[in-house]
């Protein structure tokens, strides 16, 4: 069959899959409304295929079919995410608390979809998804779904939505561009070593503006640097919101490493750990880490110069601009969601309750509860008798019950 027939068939199958998922019971309306938006997006794809099919231009039809194929490829995992958001494995107790934080940070229209994912690392889907601009998709690893101590890592994923909502890519792009050009000029001999076929080119401002290959290199360095800056900013959001519990959850899940080489769009783990420890506003030596950074390791792969040049540039820019990213995160979080950010003075009262086996009575925010949970966990871990129940299970129950108290208090206050 021809590509038009096949692509229509695949798009209709995708829509039919959405219709089946829509028959599910949804604990929160956001998943259902997101599915309907995705459904409309694919109905529009079908209309495009029909219009392109009426043309004599083969390239037009091919591009239309390729676009639909790519969107199916891109959105099928998101359908899975939306389906899994209905699963009872999720920590639904924390849902409302995250909605409150997301709406404070992003706006009252923000929708949160929480899911336990079959992916070890917490994740969000790229918030460039034009179909779901006001949705925050928070995926936590299913194996850790009973563990409330890892909830702070959702702060990083929230950061991606803040980055988009505040249009920080646009804000910092000129700076990243200047830094990329400066890096190229300052490392010109390395560039020529990596790309000897361009040895006749001079590193003048005119060449940097007019030479297309140099433009391509600068654009690549800038793009990867912006990705790193976004990741650093997201760590800043997590650290500013949750303070020490972000660092502790980050360490729990990711230290010493996951074994492979990092994506170059991310800073090295040691750099990220260093930023959290030095820019995150918490003295981690008081939380059991004499040298937090050294808890993490990176697999260093020797790359040929032409593959290494671009990520090296992005790494240098990421390190240079990390303080600015943390400062930006701090400013945004404190101005928009300061009342939810962790407060050290709020922790002892909650910790006292936990020590008595009770949930918090008048918790102020989710981060305060989780911080007290981590304090309890760290103090009890050496002696806790796990014959009857595990410590993580016990403290998670106390944390989640406290978050329910928080929700009750917030709802009754807002009622």
């Amino acid at each position, binding site marked *: 069959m021809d590509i038009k027939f096949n692509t229509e068939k695949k798009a209709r199958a995708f829509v039919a899959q959405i219709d089946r998922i829509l028959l599910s019971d949804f604990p929160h309306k956001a998943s259902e409304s997101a599915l309907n938006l995705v459904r409309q997006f694919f109905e*529009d794809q079908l209309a*495009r295929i029909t*219009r*392109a099919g009426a*043309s004599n*231009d083969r*390239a*037009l039809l091919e*591009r239309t079919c*390729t*676009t639909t194929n*790519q969107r199916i*490829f*891109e959105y099928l995992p998101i359908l899975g995410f939306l389906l899994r958001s209905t699963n009872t494995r999720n920590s639904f107790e924390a849902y409302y608390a995250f909605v409150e934080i997301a709406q404070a940070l992003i706006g009252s229209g923000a929708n949160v979809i929480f899911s336990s994912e079959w*992916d070890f*690392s*917490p*994740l*969000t*889907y*790229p918030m*460039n*998804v*034009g179909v779901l*601009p006001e949705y925050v998709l928070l995926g936590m690893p299913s194996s850790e779904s009973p563990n409330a101590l890892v909830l702070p890592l959702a702060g*990083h*994923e929230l950061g991606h939505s803040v980055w*988009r909502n505040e*249009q920080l*890519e*646009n804000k910092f*792009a*000129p700076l990243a*561009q200047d830094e*990329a*050009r400066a890096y190229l000029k300052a490392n010109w001999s390395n560039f020529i070593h990596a790309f000897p*076929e361009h040895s006749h080119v001079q590193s003048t401002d005119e060449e940097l*503006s*007019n*030479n*297309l*290959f*140099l*433009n*391509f290199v600068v*654009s*690549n360095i*800038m*793009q990867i640097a912006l990705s790193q800056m976004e990741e650093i900013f997201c760590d800043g959001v997590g650290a500013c919101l949750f303070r020490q519990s972000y660092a502790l959850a980050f360490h729990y*899940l990711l230290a010493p490493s996951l074994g*492979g*080489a*990092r*994506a*170059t*769009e*991310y800073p090295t783990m040691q750099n990220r750990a260093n930023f959290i420890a030095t820019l995150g506003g918490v003295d981690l030596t008081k939380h059991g880490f004499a040298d937090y950074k050294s808890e993490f390791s990176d697999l260093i792969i020797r790359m*040929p110069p*032409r*593959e290494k040049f671009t990520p090296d540039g992005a790494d240098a820019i990421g390190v240079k601009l990390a303080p600015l990213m943390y400062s930006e995160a701090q400013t945004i979080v404190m101005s928009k969601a300061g009342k939810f950010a962790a407060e050290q003075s709020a922790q002892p009262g909650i910790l006292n309750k936990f020590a008595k086996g009770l949930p918090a009575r008048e918790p102020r925010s989710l981060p305060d509860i989780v911080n007290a949970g981590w304090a309890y966990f760290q103090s009890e871990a050496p002696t806790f008798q796990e014959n009857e129940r595990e410590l993580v299970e016990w403290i998670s129950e106390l944390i989640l019950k406290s978050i329910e108290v928080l929700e009750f208090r917030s709802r009754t206050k807002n009622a």
Partner: protein
Amino acid sequence: MHRRWERCKPCVITADAEQVHNRDYIMTNHHISRATRDLAVEQSLDAAIEIDEIIRGERSDSPHLTQLVTSLIGTGRDVGSARKELLANPQFSSLYHRASMLAGQEDRSPDENDILSLLFLIDKAGLSQFPPDKLAIVRDFCLGLNRELVSESYSRVPEPAMARSRHPRLALAYGH
């Protein structure tokens, strides 16, 4: 290696371009964000479909081309300086020239390759003022843009706190 990677030759402003010298263009920010690039996947395709329909005499305008030009180029300032600034922007310049590389375009004259000026002209005068061969150039450019943006979207993955390596290798890009 294709010579266009070597140097971006000064683009030729055609006589028609002088008609738009008074038109102003505003570019609040040259950077095309990831969100804008993602939206432009369908915008560029819709613009190509609409232009194709104009060529076939089925319509006379392309609202999606207007949206696309606004998203990628901006509106309202002096054409000459806007053009210069856009081509000096590495991100725009890289995307623009990659999008221009559709099969067969290597044989076109410098004037025909100056799609940016053509876009400025179209934005000013409207699509109905242009013959089918010029419209076909813009349609093909939109398809080239769609190709580049879909390619980027394809390599995009969920954003975990930690990710495996996934970035395209510069050394292998376009066979260079």
